[in-house]
């Protein structure tokens, strides 16, 4: 039986032209041809990373690709770093909001050449540690990392094993937390909430019910307009202070969020690629769509449609001539 399988594979190998099979040879590409320059047709796969801001951007682009350019759009749920691997296997054409990842850029853009940068999204992103505002009011100096150990006992929970809890989000998020705690000698423990939703819920409860909370969060986010949060000041970011991930002892840098596409898509994506490249909006735009998706009971598609109807001037500039 094994022999027959091997024989079958061998035949397959011969049929494929005897060169051996590369990872890029995907059967997927045979069945659903990637986007072509022709008007309409073709499928664009935009990976969905697990935070609502990203989804907002992806949905707006997807809506335009579908309704203005006639493409089919797939939105597979793939986490940040796996999505980069998807460029190679053909599972992903576009990452619509990339947060830095210089190591992945080096590997997939420079070395493997399976991906390319496709310009800024216009969004400025910054990650940080936050506390609810009432804590900053009641505990002077708490926003300075040097005083965190003094207040660590406030953040203790049943999950944090005697130390103060630093609530983290999805396991796939960009993170220096462990290194920061170690290098700044903080009496804290990272507890993973598992999702953006867990962070939001905890933050809202913390401010409304005056519960202590220290958590990982990021801007742009709609939450800042609904719940008062204060950022904890870690040692200020300086160029290159985060070069070695194990030795990081500084705050996160403000990042210019950008778009990454697969090389294949950049070469044969036609108008779809042009649209992705032209896409650029502000943090306020993204927050408006994300807010509708989270708090106003709209699906990504509905929220995108609402924004598109309200802002024709902005998106018309992205549509390729």
């Amino acid at each position, binding site marked *: 039986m094994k022999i027959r399988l091997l024989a079958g*594979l061998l035949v397959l190998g011969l049929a494929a032209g005897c060169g051996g*099979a*590369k990872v890029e040879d995907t*059967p*997927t590409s045979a069945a659903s041809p990637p986007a072509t320059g022709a008007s309409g047709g073709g499928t664009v796969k935009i990976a969905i990373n*697990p935070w609502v801001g990203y989804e907002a951007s992806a949905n707006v682009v997807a809506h335009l690709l579908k309704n203005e350019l006639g493409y089919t759009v797939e939105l597979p*749920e793939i986490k940040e770093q796996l999505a980069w691997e998807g460029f190679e296997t053909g599972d992903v054409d576009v990452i619509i909001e990339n947060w830095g990842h210089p*190591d992945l850029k080096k590997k997939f853009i420079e070395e493997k050449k399976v991906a390319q940068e496709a310009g800024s999204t216009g969004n400025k992103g910054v990650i940080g540690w936050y506390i609810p505002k009432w804590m900053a009011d009641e505990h002077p100096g708490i926003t300075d990392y040097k005083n965190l150990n003094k207040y660590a006992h406030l953040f203790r929970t049943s999950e944090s094993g005697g130390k103060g809890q630093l609530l983290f989000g999805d396991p796939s998020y960009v993170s220096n937390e462990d290194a920061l705690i170690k290098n700044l000698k903080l009496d804290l423990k990272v507890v993973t909430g*598992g999702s*953006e939703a867990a962070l939001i819920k905890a933050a809202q409860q913390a401010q409304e019910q005056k519960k202590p909370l220290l958590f990982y969060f990021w801007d742009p986010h709609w939450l800042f307009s609904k719940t008062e949060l204060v950022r904890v000041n870690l040692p200020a970011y300086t160029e290159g202070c985060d070069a070695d991930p194990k030795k990081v002892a500084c705050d996160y840098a403000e990042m210019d969020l950008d778009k990454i596409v697969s090389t294949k898509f950049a070469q044969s994506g036609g108008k779809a690629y042009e649209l992705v490249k032209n896409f650029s909006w502000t943090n306020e735009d993204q927050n408006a769509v994300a807010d509708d998706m989270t708090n106003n009971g709209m699906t990504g598609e509905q929220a995108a449609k609402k924004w598109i109807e309200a802002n024709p001037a902005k998106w018309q500039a992205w549509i390729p001539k």
Partner: protein
Amino acid sequence: MSVAAVSSPSRPHLPRWAAPAGAVVLFAVAYLAFRGTATLPHDDEAAPFVAITELREWVDANKNSNPLFLYVVNYVRLLVGWIHVTLAGALHALGWPGLIGLMGAVGWATGGLRVGLLGVAGFAAFGVLGVWESSVDTLALVGTAVLLSLATGLPLGVWAGRSPRLRRALNPVLDVMQIMPTFAYLAPMVLFFQIGAPAGAVATMIYAIPPAIRITALAIDQVSPAAVEASTSLGATRWHTLRKVHLPLARSTMTLAVNQTIMMALSMVVIANLISAPGLGSDIIRGLSRQNVGIMLPAGLAIVVMAVVLDRTTMAAARRHRGDGGQPAGPRWTRVAGAAVLAGAGVTLTYALPAALVAGWPAGWVLPMAGPVNDAVRWAETTWYDVTESVKNVTSEVVLNPLQELLTSAPWWLVAAAVLLLARWASGWRPALTALGCLLAIALLGLWEHSMVTLSMVVVAVLAVLGVGLVLGVAAARSAWFSAVQRPLLDAAQTMPSFVYLLPALALFGPTKFTAIFASVIYAAPPVVRLVEEGVRKVPPAVVEAAVAAGSTPGQLLRKVQLPMARESILLAANQGIVLTLAMVVLGALVGGGALGYDVVSGFSQRTNFGMGFAAGVAIVLLGIMLDRITQGADRRPSPHRRMFR
């Protein structure tokens, strides 16, 4: 065989409990004396992790040049991918009327009109739930995995059925495959096949193949030797005998193998979405990462419906081959004709209806669930907040955290000694040494601390499962009425893929370790309840009568007669409960479970943690084998009561 039994002949005055009690005291003293020393704290940069991460980088760099990948692995990936794409293409091309008609036709042909209607209603439900596309993707992935499993599993099973030597060689391998929690399969898949549908299909196949091999081997083995002899004496060749005697006689049991393979594949296929395979799991993961039960519930329901439809249809086929269990209504030709008409009607509809209507399930026919479901969840959250919070906090602070503290702060050699003694007492020397070996391997992998945390969760969950199992099992054994109500619920619960249990747990408790424990308790309870009920029922009526005649109250009857005599079943229930609980506790990492399961998830999420995730997968397997070996003696240990009554 217990310690007490061994030592009692020399010192007849020592009571039975003295040795275990002495051991407990000894361990307590040793713990207090050595606490905090020789612990093995977790380190993200442990040598094995780094080595595996480097291996992965090597594979990554060489997968387009190394001959093993170029000529074997990548072709397997292509082949599997091709099967999946073809199958998915065909299913999508059928359109929803075609696919629903076809499923109904298959049901009708195998099991009669009722099964056919179930197929139609079930598949239509995918559309009504609003998850048609994902359901078809999942169906294609399950189909690919099942085809591959059967293509390799059935021949292997036939071979194993005729060769006891092969069966002996396969048995331990299949054992390990069945103890292995689903999570552990994923990392090696990523290593060899990258992410996506092919990797998902192969992972699902590995998980689903053991029943295909086992049941087929059993079926072939059970073919009556007389029939085989008759055939050989008539001069038939081996091949002829196999084809004309073995296979026809084993057919009904082999259909059962198909059924079990499909069921296993269904419970794995959702987890395969963690490595970006398409399908319903994607919706469930999306729901988990948004903490949105409204997104998850339709997908979860669709999986359950799919399981029920496929289960009933294949079971009907198995029964038909066996020729018992009530012939389906109507003679054969009406069933086949009806089926043909139904399939034809479906496919015709696909091509006759306007393309816009067939392109996807019409949006107007979708039952909008997300809103009401989320409202209900919010209501439950706010209404029961105090209750759920206090249950969670009390369990965490009073039971879970102290136990975790105990296991992580005890020296590793003390824990190892405890495991050795416990396994030796419960199962004998050989399993004890295996258990010890597994534990030491975990330490060498650099995952001691996280394994201890997971272990503490498993222990708490198993105790809870046994508690629930005893109460419900005894109640069912004593009341025919209760048993009759409970049985269909247990049936349904056992058909459901494990993932589904995370939903209610998450809705009630939010993401914490307790949530994972809660989910594993509901997951593992049904088989435990069953075993307990069976054990209590099996107590001979004469014994019960005698006890009642001697004036036992119902309580005494239970404590002194029924439970002691059901001891074996209860221990077997514990063994089953532990293996199931481990699988679920690990999966609970998706709802805040932490520890080993989280390491696995993190290994997929962050490239630098790949090694840790991979090692954690191995550690989970080792932990599973260890727990199984500690408790496996349950069904072999002679019970004093049994000896008395034989």
